[in-house]
């Protein structure tokens, strides 16, 4: 490890230590008559850490248990009262919802982005409607989706899809529209048919735009899942947080947030790995942008 990197890591750790230290002191050391950060509102770092550890160590977050052997098909069930879920199962459910939302949203975004970008008339017709839908805050759709799709994972997937779709759609649309005229003319002169232009020019260009927004769209897929769970469900990280909130369990809320933050960080790291492999042809300065 070179000294520059070591210094950076040290400074990054220092920020965490200072923040947690301030939180700890504020919530445990009395100042005057009370605390700067009362436990009821802010919990304490030690309690939150203990709660996270407990969640992972003890396994379940629910008291109800059944003696049935674990049935894999029930792993993703969100409404099984007989099945106390471990924090891993909650994570798995949130991850499943997020990934489904990402895949469905991305496929739909790519398909429609291509279609509209190659068809000027169609895109002109749909433009105001797409703008309208995109301007709509997606959270207001959550109750509708729950009404339509129930409290299971699909209402969360639907919410995530509405978030992911527009990011991918606009990027692919842009990517197809902004293929350099010179590269296109060159490809034509090299003898490419329309189908070959699609495979060798439009597709890679659109994909590069899509992948440049990979961090954003994967992040939004997870947000859709968590917000959906938070608003109504029986499983997932959002549910964990919501449940703790319902009982004024500040420690539980913070513990949920810590788990969520680490979870998102891990996923973001995986996305970076995928991106590095897929966008190897990009100059480093451009590839780092999101």
């Amino acid at each position: 490890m070179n000294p520059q990197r070591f210094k950076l890591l040290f400074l990054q750790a220092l920020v965490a230590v200072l923040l947690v230290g301030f939180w700890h002191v504020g919530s445990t050391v009395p100042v005057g008559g009370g605390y700067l950060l009362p436990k009821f509102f802010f919990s304490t770092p030690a309690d939150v850490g203990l709660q996270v550890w407990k969640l992972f160590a003890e396994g379940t977050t629910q008291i109800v248990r059944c003696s049935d052997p674990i049935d894999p098909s029930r792993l993703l069930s969100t409404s099984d009262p007989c099945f106390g879920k471990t924090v891993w199962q909650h994570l798995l459910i949130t991850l499943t919802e997020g990934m489904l939302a990402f895949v469905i949203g991305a496929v739909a975004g790519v398909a429609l982005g291509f279609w509209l970008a190659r068809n000027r008339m169609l895109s002109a017709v749909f433009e105001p409607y797409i703008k309208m839908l995109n301007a709509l805050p997606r959270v207001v759709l959550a109750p509708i989706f729950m009404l339509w799709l129930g409290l299971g994972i699909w209402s969360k997937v639907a919410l995530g899809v509405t978030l992911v779709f527009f990011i991918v759609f606009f990027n692919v649309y842009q990517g197809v529209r902004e293929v350099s005229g010179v590269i296109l003319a060159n490809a034509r002169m090299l003898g490419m048919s329309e189908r070959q232009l699609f495979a060798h020019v439009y597709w890679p260009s659109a994909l590069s735009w899509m992948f440049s927004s990979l961090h954003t769209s994967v992040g939004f897929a997870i947000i859709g899942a968590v917000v959906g769970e938070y608003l109504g469900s029986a499983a997932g990280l959002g549910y964990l947080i919501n449940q703790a909130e319902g009982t004024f369990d500040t420690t539980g809320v913070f513990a949920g947030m810590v788990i969520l933050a680490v979870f998102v960080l891990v996923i973001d790291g995986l996305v970076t790995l995928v991106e590095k492999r897929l966008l190897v042809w990009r100059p480093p300065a451009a590839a780092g942008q999101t």
Partner: protein
Amino acid sequence: MHDRPAGAAAVARRGDADPAAQEAVRFRGVMIAFSLPGGASYPAVAATDLAVGTHEFVAIVGPTGCGKSTLLNAAAGLLAPSSGEVFVLGARLTGINRAAGYLFQQDAVMPWKTARDNVAIGLEVAGVARAQAAAKAQAWLERVGLGAFAERYPHQLSGGQRKRVGLAQVLIRAPKILLMDEPFGPLDAQTRQIMGNLLLELWAFERKAVLFVTHDLEEAIALADRVIIMSAGPAARVIGDHTIDLARPRDASEVRLSPRFHELHKLIWSQLRTEVLKAYNASGSDSAGAAYSAGGA
């Protein structure tokens, strides 16, 4: 840039016993106008007649904005003339010119493909097996001096190296006609001369027909058999046609020191200078520049 379905492209073939078959490209009364926003039309190129022989290296020189590139795009089939016709190897051109390779002024290689894949693509889309196309591409990269850079992506290459990839990409398809639009324009002076020599070296093998657009008169004289002078736009036309009788094989940089080169340069420059000044004075209105960028590929 005009869009044209490539499927509708006509195949350019040699006419039987037609004297025109000796001509790689012929412009017959080619006139090109661009419609401007507001309904007006800007005449970029006035009716032009010009022929390029099957083994001839022709350079077109003219001031910026004179429609040289526009004329080249018409020969490539990327742009349909407003009136007149373009003949390629004796046959009337409609759609993309399949017999031609085009080296653009800007970087036109695909940034998402390695140097080798970029060179191989012209063969691949023509149905050559992938492995075979890759092997040929490697051979071509070696010919342009980039054998060791086959796995690199365009952004990992210098401007000159990218031009070499572009050159290999065009030549691997063995086009009968080579169209070049200020191909070495963005390069520095030394690299330009090296690329000029590389071009002459490769050209000497097969002596394809070359239509080479440049604003650099020295480059034109050093490379070409014939130098065509175009007037300043609008409605640019051919105003001079000079045969360059410098011996071949030439060295693109050394030939510039010969007395004959200086004579030719002096002769052609006296004609070109008037046009350059005209274009320079007209560029105050900016109309020439705007139309040029509209017409440029």
